[in-house]
């Protein structure tokens, strides 16, 4: 802080607005917004840029290498279903990373939760909603345990979750049994990834999402304008709405196209996992951006001492975040189980966690805490799924697959670290 002596910008108090504070709004013109964006990029805040670039470049790359298979409706649907569990796990991890913590056990927690509900379905013949509820409760209880060890006892999250990474694999093994596989036969849970919304309903849903987004954005803009608050130019707001609309409509039309390989069958529609991801994206985005809880999570991640002095219970926030994240791991575990139609002792192990952390970081969430959004999980999850799917189509050897995926995570972490250095340098 002692090095913050950069008088350039404020040598002259408010040269532009000598009469008062009224003029001190951010530059609301389109040029101002563009300049602001470029400034942010140069200051190290890359936002969604790396993930969007990654999606575009990787799509072009794999399309060039596998033109006949990569961009078919069938493969795109597979890819999106592949992305769903990664994204859901990453949506929880974003919260943990926002605090500057890490949860190395998130992957195996998704395995434990899936195992619990698979056994309830198989052994007890429980209805699907009991199984789902049980998975969520298991996740929340695990999160309470982890969060307590981290926040109350004060063990670094890295150590706690590294230990639990091992311990929970034991739990899954115990629940499933050595060498066992529990098949998922319940139609509702399997349906997450194996049944599809009727085409008409799919289009209606897409239209509703776009309309709701447009109304919310425009309303917010109108309120800001009418109260003379900081706001973006209308053209930027409209541009965002158009962009979202185009993405939603293109995706819907791909998922609603017939993707069956044989002419005899009809295979089309949005898999039910997609609305699950979208609803959770909206709910968690609201929680993070528009409620006190979300604000306090950012504050704890940015400066926990400031949060403490502001009367925020840092312990409570951290425990709640671990509970939330582990519950999201449960949802992710269920979708992964639906996709494979089974749960094994290895569920949630392997590269599950690496993929999810990679997704969050590629999406723009910082490993250093304080910076991140829920949508990062979606964008980064797509990047990871494209890599995984594309390498599968190329039939690269397993060793190369590991090296490439690990390399991508390292690349994302380097971008994050450099961005942070850049931001720190910009200040002094």
């Amino acid at each position, binding site marked *: 802080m002692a090095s913050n002596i950069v008088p350039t910008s*404020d040598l002259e108090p*408010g040269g532009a607005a000598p009469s008062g504070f009224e003029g*001190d709004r951010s530059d609301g013109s389109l040029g101002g917004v563009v300049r602001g964006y470029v400034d942010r990029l140069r200051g190290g805040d890359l936002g969604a840029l790396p993930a969007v670039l990654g999606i575009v470049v990787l799509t072009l790359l794999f399309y060039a290498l596998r033109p006949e298979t990569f961009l078919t409706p069938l493969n795109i649907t597979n890819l999106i279903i592949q992305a769903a569990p990664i994204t859901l796990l990453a949506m929880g991890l974003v919260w943990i990373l926002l605090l500057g913590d890490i949860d190395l056990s998130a992957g195996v927690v998704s395995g434990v939760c899936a195992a619990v509900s698979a056994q309830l379905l198989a052994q007890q013949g429980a209805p699907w909603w009991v199984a789902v509820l049980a998975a969520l409760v298991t996740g929340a209880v695990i999160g309470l345990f982890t969060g307590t060890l981290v926040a109350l006892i004060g063990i670094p999250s890295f150590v706690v979750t590294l230990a639990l990474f091992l311990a929970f694999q034991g739990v899954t093994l115990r629940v499933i049994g050595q060498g066992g596989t529990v098949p998922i036969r319940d139609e509702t849970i399997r349906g997450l990834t194996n049944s599809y919304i009727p085409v008409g309903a799919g289009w209606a849903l897409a239209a509703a999402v776009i309309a709701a987004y447009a109304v919310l954005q425009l309303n917010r803009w109108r309120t800001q304008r009418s109260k003379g608050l900081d706001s973006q130019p209308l053209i930027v707001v409209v541009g965002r709405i158009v962009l979202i609309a185009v993405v939603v409509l293109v995706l819907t039309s791909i998922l609603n196209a017939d993707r069956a390989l044989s002419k005899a069958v009809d295979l089309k529609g949005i898999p039910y996992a997609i609305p699950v991801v979208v609803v959770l994206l909206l709910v968690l985005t609201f929680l993070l951006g528009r409620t006190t809880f979300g604000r306090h999570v950012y504050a704890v991640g*940015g400066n926990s001492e400031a949060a403490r002095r502001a*009367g925020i219970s840092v312990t409570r926030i951290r425990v709640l975040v671990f509970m939330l994240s582990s519950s999201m791991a449960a949802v992710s575990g269920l979708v992964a189980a639906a996709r494979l139609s089974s749960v094994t002792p290895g569920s949630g192990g392997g590269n599950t966690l690496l993929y999810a952390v990679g997704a969050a970081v590629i999406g723009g969430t910082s490993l250093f805490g304080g910076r991140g959004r829920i949508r990062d999980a979606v964008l980064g999850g797509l990047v990871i799924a494209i890599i995984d799917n594309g390498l599968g189509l190329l039939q690269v050897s397993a060793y190369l697959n590991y090296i490439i995926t690990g390399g991508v995570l390292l690349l994302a972490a380097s971008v994050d670290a450099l961005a942070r250095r850049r931001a720190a340098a*910009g200040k002094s």
Partner: protein
Amino acid sequence: MTVPHAEAGSPILELRGVEKSFGAVQVLHGVDLKVYPGKVTALVGDNGAGKSTLIKSIAGIHPIDGGQILFNGEPVSITGPRDSAALGLEVVYQDLALADNLDVVQNMFLGRERKHGIVLDEASMEQAARDTLAKLSVRTLKSVRQLVSSLSGGQRQTVAIAKAVLWDSKVVILDEPTAALGVAQTRQVLDLVRRLADTGHAVLFITHNMVDVFEVSDRVAALYLGRMAADVDISTVDRAQVIELITAGRSGDIGLAPATVSEVV
């Protein structure tokens, strides 16, 4: 201990014989202090004299071991930061404690957000932050929606002070607000300190800098090795005397009794 002149008005905050020890080490010895509304009181003293400890005691971070704190003439008990905040006491600490990843409005309302149901009421918070900054004639911020990480040292100090003022505080305590600032930014912060007092706040202002003391203060209180050497009107002392009070505990006929000084040295 010495109050040579009759004071206009009565102190809003008064300390009587405040004692504070950390383990076996006694840091504050029978400290008396008066802080008046509409006035800037400079708290001066050498490194380690106990200035930071004194304000942390007032703020409830290190509750006092002995003596009394009076607020508006009534004895009060301050056992935690919540107590001092409830009385209308706001402290701007040396390290400011702002969250770099939040914007100016979000920092000013941190921990006391306004809500509509469960939704944050951003509009009313932004408006109130703007009004507070306007009232303090702060014109150096580009936007109240700027991230704090993009602010200069002086601007950060400004935000921290405005945050304290937002809460209808009666007493604002500042720990070395100009220590890390360049000339121009120090100027801004001193102006702000003056405006705080002019808008009716009682200001207690810790500083090392004699120029700052004589620029903005109405009163000066000098701590010497945990004892209050003087708490006097600024017009009754000159720069050399204040320096003597800081370094020797007494100057001419003001300050600690010679016996006390020789006893502690």
